[in-house]
């Protein structure tokens, strides 16, 4: 599966590329207005999900916004950067054991090796 690698604070995470419909640079995108927890993009009001809060990273000014779309919802995800889109076989993604989490709802679903470093894969169902 194709994964979009994003950076959030000091962390680096993977987002399933097939749920990302657009990558927006707020400096270049004229038809995007981002407020605290909502954004209006081309007339559509969308919730803004800040991965800084999810990842426990200090809030910063997001430099990139991802428009993500799951089964029944669309949202804008704020990250610091998006770089590569590697192809990672799904057999190389190990599911995370659920018992390590404090709450049943979780935003990461798996881990894979990214140049020898374990890298977490976001769970769109938990995120959206």
């Amino acid at each position, binding site marked *: 599966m194709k994964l979009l690698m994003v950076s959030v604070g000091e*962390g680096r995470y993977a987002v399933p590329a097939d749920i990302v419909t657009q990558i927006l640079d707020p400096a270049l995108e004229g038809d995007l207005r981002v407020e605290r927890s909502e954004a209006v993009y081309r007339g559509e009001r969308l919730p803004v999900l800040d991965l800084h809060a999810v990842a426990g990273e200090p809030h910063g000014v997001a430099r990139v916004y991802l428009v993500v779309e799951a089964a029944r919802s669309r949202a804008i995800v704020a990250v610091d950067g998006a770089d590569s889109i590697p192809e990672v076989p*799904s057999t190389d993604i*190990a599911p*995370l*054991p659920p*018992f390590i989490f404090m709450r049943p709802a979780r*935003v990461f*679903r798996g881990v894979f090796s990214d140049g020898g*470093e*374990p890298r977490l894969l976001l769970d769109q169902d938990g995120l959206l």
Partner: protein
Amino acid sequence: MSAAGGAWLISFRVGGAEAALPLGIVREVAARPAITRVPGSHSFVTGIALHGGVALPVYDLVRFAPLWSGPRPVPAAGQMDAAEHVIVCDWGEARVGLLGDGVDLLEPGQAGNAPGEARAPRCGISAEYVREILRRNDESVLLLDPGRLFASLGVPAAESTGAREGGGEDDPACR
């Protein structure tokens, strides 16, 4: 009387205490692997490592407050423990790693039960997690109760951990 009824043990240092676990639950002792912090996980979960393609949760027992009845050197928030080894344990269907230093094999007969005066743990580990206090040379080695320990850490005794066997994350039984 030999240690733990004649069973082989793995001893290790954690938080200033000398602890031990039955060798039977230890799959491997490995050099500390690359570990990634997992947001939303328990504070005593240092992070996740990849071990033979399986997600290995790595626990820092120093951060697991219920284990301790006394003070121990807890790293500051955000800092990882500096332990050099991970003791990979199989518990039920789960595989978990425990950070530790000074890992050693304790042969049957190498350690004996501590005399009465040494029975009161003075190393800070809570007595409810100690199955037996052993004596090796001049030091006390606390044989931990793995059932109580892993249950307290939230590790299920017989439930899928998500350990993949060929199916990767597509295997629904592993989710």
